[in-house]
């Protein structure tokens, strides 16, 4: 960080603003130096002998602040950490004093979602007494697919916790909302409502009083089920001492409100707090800060840009920090990047025309593959012309759909790093790693063993694999018949005979006679390696064992070049996961880790994050991971309706404090697909419009990561933009007139 670079007048005002005043907000568009002003303010506070909390709404933001502080003199009194760390410390200390036997344990969202699934098991097996006594009807919206229901319930509960809404508050709000809505239903015949509703859902507005009463009854059952799940989930977390970051904030805030004397110990000497990306703060973070620093947040500085608020549908409330600040200083001078790019991107948000030209290039490809080739070729050309790979970013809306782009870049030997909302186990290299580990832990796991046989370290032909899958001519007769199981072909273990046969052929060589010499040698080497790993398993720590296996398999065959290094980086992340797992569970076995990996592989994609890895690579990021970063050159591919912006697909049930629960699907003896309440509330709250406004802000945030050059591309023909906007065409139209 260049601490010596001169500050603008506005930045100087922000830096010099008194610390003992009520909260300050530093606002401004991208590139105006908000984070820099915040850091300088932190340095000033440090210089004055104050203890500083320098933080951000997300862990990614905190990591970026840490990076910017790197290289400066040791700053012992600047604590650069997530806000929830303070909360966690407070809850843990308090709990330990009262229940010495209970240790508070930090967990992530994936683990917390599993807790909810566990408490939901009795619901899905209809074992609740309320079902037996017919107090609750289980036919509620979303319940036809219990796994998805549980995932939706977890997302809702997480938002409720982040909004500091307890199960009791939730129940009260839901019943209040239901009573208000069904007690005095709105006018479903309103022409505006009718015209705003998609044709296929208009039948939901043709409701009789009897049908409304029926939907009311279904909604009450949904409320009862969700309240009970919420209560059981919170109780389970408490009983086991488990704390997600949001849970820590929730409990800590309530604790401070009940016992104000805990405030000083919780602060641990911190005098001032400086919070970046404040537009992404959730109510629990804001309320915790208020509990620590007082209602008017004396000593707290927020920095951010409401124009980049992309987390409101996830529960963030930008109005808290910026609406309540005693003083707002808006930075206007764009210090880094091309102001023309910022103006051009701003036009997408404002749906207006930009003034003048901008260094933005557009490309519409025939196909996704063609588009990926364009991105890779252009990136390669820029690198050849002198742009360091680390100064190039490809920012996508959904990282899970970026595999084609990653492949195209690697095919040109361009080093790549990936970060954002993505499951590590979706990558082939990580799946290969799990397969290699599984070959030791459970060689009868059919799908993983097959993956080993095809993997580069064995690379057997289809004919050899077919041979290994079959019965050898001299197969020993089974002593007893395996019981007939109900077949679920979606599960890996649905055919035990098949599993046993392949496993025995690979491990014991029962089919080797039918293999070619080359195949026999390869499988023999693999068998030998497996036996050696079995020996090592008895004496090596799990981390060292796993590392050994991965080095002899995936890493040994990763190859050189960009693809090999990409594979290596993914395997390093896998090994880091194993390390973290062993730290949490020192006595765990390889089986335990693989069971955990299986559970994580099935997790809700919204709950898993991939942190940035190597420097010096072209970064493939999603919008959230790109926030706060800047690059010479940015690609925004797949900017088409349905991809960027994503289509608005409402959850199975929504909640607002005013309307309570809003079930989407009309269940039971229904005529229409959607409930009348859902159709009405979507119209009333303009939810679709708000969603697309947030997608525009996401585009703005992504586009303004570019300092010098922005490439915006899409494939196929544009739609008319009726369902969702065609942002590339809007931007192109605005810039070219």
């Amino acid at each position, binding site marked *: 960080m260049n601490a010596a670079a001169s500050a603008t007048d506005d930045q100087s005002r922000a830096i010099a603003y008194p610390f003992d005043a009520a909260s300050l907000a530093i606002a401004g568009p991208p590139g105006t130096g908000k984070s820099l002003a915040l850091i300088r303010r932190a340095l000033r506070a440090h210089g004055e002998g104050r203890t500083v909390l320098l933080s951000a709404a997300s862990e990614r933001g905190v990591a970026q602040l840490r990076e910017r502080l790197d290289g400066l003199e040791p700053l012992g009194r600047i604590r650069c950490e997530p806000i929830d760390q303070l909360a966690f410390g407070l809850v843990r200390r308090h709990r330990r004093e009262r229940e010495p036997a209970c240790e508070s344990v930090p967990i992530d969202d994936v683990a917390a979602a599993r807790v909810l699934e566990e408490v939901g098991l009795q619901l899905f097996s209809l074992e609740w007494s309320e079902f037996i006594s017919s107090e609750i009807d289980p036919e509620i919206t979303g319940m036809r697919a219990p796994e998805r229901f549980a995932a939706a319930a977890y997302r809702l509960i997480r938002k409720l916790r982040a909004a500091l809404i307890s199960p009791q508050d939730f129940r009260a709000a839901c019943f209040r909302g239901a009573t208000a809505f069904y007690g005095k239903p709105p006018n479903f015949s309103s022409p505006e409502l009718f015209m705003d509703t998609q044709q296929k859902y208009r039948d939901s507005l043709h409701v009789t009083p009897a049908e409304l009463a029926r939907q009311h009854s279904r909604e009450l059952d949904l409320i009862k089920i969700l309240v009970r799940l919420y209560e059981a989930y919170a109780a389970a977390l408490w009983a086991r001492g488990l704390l997600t970051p949001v849970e820590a904030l929730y409990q800590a805030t309530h604790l401070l409100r009940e016992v104000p004397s805990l405030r000083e110990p919780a602060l641990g000497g911190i005098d001032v707090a400086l919070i970046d990306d404040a537009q992404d703060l959730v109510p629990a973070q804001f309320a915790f800060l208020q509990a620590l620093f007082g209602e008017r947040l004396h000593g707290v500085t927020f920095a951010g840009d409401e124009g980049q608020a992309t987390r409101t549908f996830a529960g963030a409330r930008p109005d808290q920090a910026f609406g309540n600040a005693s003083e707002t200083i808006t930075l206007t001078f764009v210090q880094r990047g091309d102001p023309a790019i910022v103006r051009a991107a701003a036009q997408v948000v404002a749906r207006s025309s930009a003034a003048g030209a901008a260094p933005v290039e557009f490309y519409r490809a025939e196909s996704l593959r063609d588009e990926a080739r364009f991105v890779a070729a252009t990136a390669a050309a820029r690198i050849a012309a002198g742009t360091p790979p680390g100064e190039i970013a490809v920012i996508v809306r959904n990282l899970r759909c970026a595999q084609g782009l990653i492949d195209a870049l690697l095919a040109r030997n361009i080093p790549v790093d990936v970060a954002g909302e993505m499951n590590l186990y979706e990558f082939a290299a990580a799946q290969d790693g799990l397969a290699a580990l599984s070959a030791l832990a459970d060689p009868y796991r059919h799908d993983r063993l097959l993956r080993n046989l095809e993997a580069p370290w064995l690379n057997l032909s289809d004919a050899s694999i077919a041979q290994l899958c079959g019965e050898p001519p001299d197969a020993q007769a089974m002593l007893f018949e395996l019981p007939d199981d109900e077949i*679920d072909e979606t599960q890996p273990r649905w055919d035990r005979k098949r599993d046993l046969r392949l496993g025995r052929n690979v491990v014991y060589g029962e089919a080797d006679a039918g293999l070619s010499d080359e195949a026999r040698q390869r499988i023999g080497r693999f068998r030998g390696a497996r036996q050696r790993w079995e020996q090592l398993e008895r004496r090596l720590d799990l981390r060292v064992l796993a590392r050994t296996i991965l080095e002899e398999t995936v890493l040994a065959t990763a190859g050189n070049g960009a693809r090999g290094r990409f594979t290596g980086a993914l395997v390093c992340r896998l090994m880091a996961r194993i390390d973290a797992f062993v730290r949490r569970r020192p006595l765990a076995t390889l089986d335990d880790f693989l069971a955990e990996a299986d559970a994580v592989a099935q997790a809700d994609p919204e709950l898993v994050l991939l942190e940035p890895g190597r420097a010096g690579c072209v970064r493939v990021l999603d919008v959230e991971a790109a926030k706060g970063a800047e690059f010479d050159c940015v690609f925004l591919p797949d900017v088409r309706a349905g991809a960027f912006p994503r289509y608005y697909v409402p959850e199975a049930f929504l909640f607002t404090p005013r309307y309570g629960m809003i079930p989407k699907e009309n269940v039971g003896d229904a005529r229409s697909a959607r409930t009348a309440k859902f159709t009405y509330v979507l119209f009333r709250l303009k939810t679709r419009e708000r969603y697309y406004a947030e997608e525009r802000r996401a585009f703005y945030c992504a586009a303004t990561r570019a300092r010098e050059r922005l490439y915006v591309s899409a494939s196929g023909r544009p739609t008319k933009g009726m369902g969702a906007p065609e942002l590339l065409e809007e931007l192109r139209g605005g810039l070219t007139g």
Partner: protein
Amino acid sequence: MGFPTQIEFELARRRARRTAKRYLAWFLERYRRAPFEVIGTEESAALDLDGYEFIGYIDRLDRDDRTGAVTVIDYKTGTIAESAVQYRDDVASFVDFQLPFYYWVRTACGDRVGRLMLVPLKDPRLEVRPIELEVVPLPAPRPSYDAPGGTIGIDELERAKVRMIELARMLSDERIESFPVTSDPEVCTYCAYRDACRNRPQLCEERFAH
């Protein structure tokens, strides 16, 4: 039970009851219009075509009381063609062989098959509106796009039969090195080998909202 959880079983049972009510209403209305006799349910269907044995099960067979013509009926709980012309296109493009196969099975048994019918039972909220095709000897005119009823020519059913034989020959007699990978990543959800597969199609955003 066949369902992963008790709740799924219970909800499926309720849906089935609702669907059954609508089905019965349709069944009775159809009988009132043109009386028929149900001559078979879950009827085994086996046919040797050029040395290849094909087997299946016909959900229901009706014989018209007045004309003696047989209707082959297949119940569908998944997504089906939305119109007769769409179904004919599926047969012509060799996407669907089921009803043509049943036609040939029953013809070989001596029946005069006059109609082929797909009965959708997916959505209990909707009235049962089957896709119904009258079998005609001459090349059939193309029905209007969204009509549930229409005709299908014997020549089209013959072409489907020929293609079935070709495919059977390919599968059993020829050496297939590999099957092409699907381009639809959603299909992988149902595949028992998805974790083994090194060629899974890439995920891409849906083009149309659902």
